[in-house]
């Protein structure tokens, strides 16, 4: 989500071009792996790298439109909401991303929130 969150603890993770178009990379954090996606339109999304179905690594899936298909059992997750699409149910926790002229950062706060929720 490219939102202008006020005053967050932004952590730089790299350049948008480090991620293949219609692809994803991972960021390792103490709170688990974060998947960072780049769509065909150069929108960037980040979320927990864990499918709500059986924990599959979403970063390894095929990115299409603003969705990703999990490599293990083909659950389709919306990158915009983190929710499973179609008949499936489940939700992945999103992480705030900031894109400033291609330099990407994720919000530490949202990582902390993830931990708090666990």
């Amino acid at each position, binding site marked *: 989500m490219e939102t202008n969150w006020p005053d967050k603890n932004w952590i730089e993770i790299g350049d948008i071009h480090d991620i293949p178009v219609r692809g994803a990379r991972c960021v390792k954090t103490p709170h688990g792996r974060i998947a960072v996606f780049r769509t065909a339109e150069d929108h960037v999304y980040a979320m927990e790298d864990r499918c709500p179905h059986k924990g599959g690594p979403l970063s390894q*899936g095929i990115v299409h439109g603003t969705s990703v298909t999990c490599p293990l059992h083909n659950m389709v997750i919306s990158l915009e909401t983190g929710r499973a699409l179609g008949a499936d149910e489940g939700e992945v926790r999103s992480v705030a991303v900031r894109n400033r002229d291609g330099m990407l950062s994720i919000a530490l706060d949202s990582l902390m929130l993830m931990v708090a929720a666990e």
Partner: protein
Amino acid sequence: MKQKLVIIGNGMAPGRMLEELFEQAPGLYDVVIFNAEPRVNYDRIMLSPVLSGEKLYEDIVIHGDDWYARHGVTLHKGAKVTGIDRTAKTVTSANGVTEAYDKLVIATGSLPFIIPVPGHTLPGVLAYRDLDDVEKMLDATKRGGRAIVIGAGLLGLEAAYGLKRQGMDVTVIHIMPTIMERQLDPPAAYLLEKALNDRGIEIITKANTKRIVGEDKVEGIELEDGRVIEGTIVVMAVGIRPAAQLAKEAGVVTNRGIVVDDGMMTSDGSIYALGECAEHRGVCYGLVAPLYESAKTLADRLIGGASEYRGSVVNTKLKVTGINLFSAGDFAEGEDREEIVLRDATAGVYKRLVLKDNRIVGAVLYGETADGAWFFDMIKRGTDISEMRDTLIFGQAYQGGSPLDPTAAVAALPDDAEICGCNGVCKSKIVGKITAKGLTSLDDVRAHTKASASCGSCTGLVEQLMVLTLGDSYNPAVVQPMCKCTELGHDDVRRLIVAKGLKTIPAVMQELEWKTSCGCAKCRPALNYYLVCDWPDEYADDYQSRFINERVHANIQKDGTYSVVPRMWGGVTNAGELRAIADVVDKFEIPMVKVTGGQRIDLLGIHKEDLPAVWADLGKAGFVSGQAYAKGLRTVKTCVGTDWCRFGTQDSTGFGIRLEKFMWGSWTPAKLKLAVSGCPRNCAEATCKDIGVICVDSGYEIHFAGAAGLDIKGTEVLGLVATEDEALEHIVALAQMYREQGRYLERIYKWAKRVGLDEIRRQIMGDAEKRKGYFDRFVFSQTFAQVDPWSERVSGKDKHEFKPMAVVGMAEAAE
């Protein structure tokens, strides 16, 4: 004794007549057919899609050899009839066959008109009439250059489009001021001309051909005004004339065609004429719909009925992909006539209705033709349109309040509304057959009613009728779309990729009108495979459209780790290789080592970041990727054969290794597993593999289409060959045929079931030329495919795949 029915000609009209005859009175006649062409009955309307590469000859066959056998029809192929003896009641062919008849049907069709300008006999001057002409044109396209088409009628323009699609430059010469002047008024002709220009076809109107230039072959043409156009072939598509000569020589009354009465009978009570050679009430028809109507009448007459053919109103559709054009009836202007015209220049829509006494007498639709059938129905019926005149031009959806959905629109049609124009099938016949025969698929409906079985443009309507009749139990997607992003099925997509020369995923999605911006996880890997297969040298593999396993060249496991399987050629290994594997297992603390069913070793539980280092170590010992993750060649399992075994008949191990070295790296629609057994005891279990070989004393028995997964199925025998070289060629050709025709994720046994075992045997075992073609294409493709993906990645390719983008908040804590 049975009466004998002899038919001269084997085109669509007599074919249809026989279908009617066999349905209503099977076994009434002994039927003998003389066919001047050396083949069975095929759909002549579909020659244009064959020329443009959008269909194959096999797709347009109406009656295969088995149809003639099943109905006890004697078919003399390549037998041109030279004489009819009406006194003796016999016909004789050029190749010396004489048959006596009780009833004779002349269905000699028509001949293309060749303008007798100087040079018209030069090699390279072609007509556009039958499959031979199409083959000659396709042959010419291989040499490239410019094709000159004389005549911008329906056939001429379809020929021009086909030749353009095959890569030639095309110029169309037309004598009249506007093109297709018999079917189109000038505004529609203008729009069509523009659309064809946009497709790169040059059109010169008001041009009269003076002579064809060339010494011993066509080099161009010269027009009356002195212009010279260079070209390598000249296609004459200026019209047809009924082939009535044979009847005339026999003393049957002819005019322009063979004159028949309303019962299709000629001046001789035992002789009938049918199709384009016949002249009925002064009209010779050249379109299929009227011919089918008269075929029905004739069949009825032959069984003693009294039905009468009273002539037809005809309509026309141009078969140029992406151009929608419909024309019917008479649209000349006149004092007693009025017209309603709708134009939308931006959308490229032009519609014109010609009215007389509040009835539609003619219709021209360009750009949007969905209402063609509705208007045509009203023309034939003479419907009074005064009530709906204000909204008539907007079409059926705008009659009576709110727009109808398509099913409701079909529901609103009267029972006798014509649905299939080619075959003259009305709504009630289709609905009646669906109910009476319990039909549930489009193919069934085609088989029983012929609706949508010729040009196919009414398929949508027929499907709507099925929905209407069967309710929710009918799933109209008989052609299963590839996915939700398109209505097209896999086969159509594959064909169009080749025919339209589409070479990237965005090009496919744009040209084939994908409904999503960048596809989905179902269509993208399929398209990527089709493009890799069809353009091995030109297409740049799109890794983001591959499943993770094929993207990182290892198999993802349930916990997100990967397994790695190095190739062991033919399942043979040695101490050095095993030692290297053992060292890798120790070094990377690989938790599980497992022998696979394909005779090699699987290393499980490897972290993604470690993959390049694991491959580097394996590579030093000579290992390459086993592609255990690929929709491609996996393993070739072998037994020890003549090298060791008491029973071995051939070197099965050596041949297995040779096969694997030849075929590794190739991508296939689904995984491909092979095995070679040295004797019929079959220790390599070759008879449940995708492709298997059983060695015998006399050679190599090639098997295929086995399965031992979700389905269990023994293989089918492809055939026996004598030498190892032959076995290799046959197996590789078979694999290539599957690569070119299989739908993505369709295993070879499912593909084989779909296309038919006999057809595969015919092409691979029976047709050396086809086999060589497949083999050569496989070999060409391999020059690009045989690159070890592991060593590429050890050298740094796709580095980003194996490293996290960043590590945050852990540096201090963990290291």
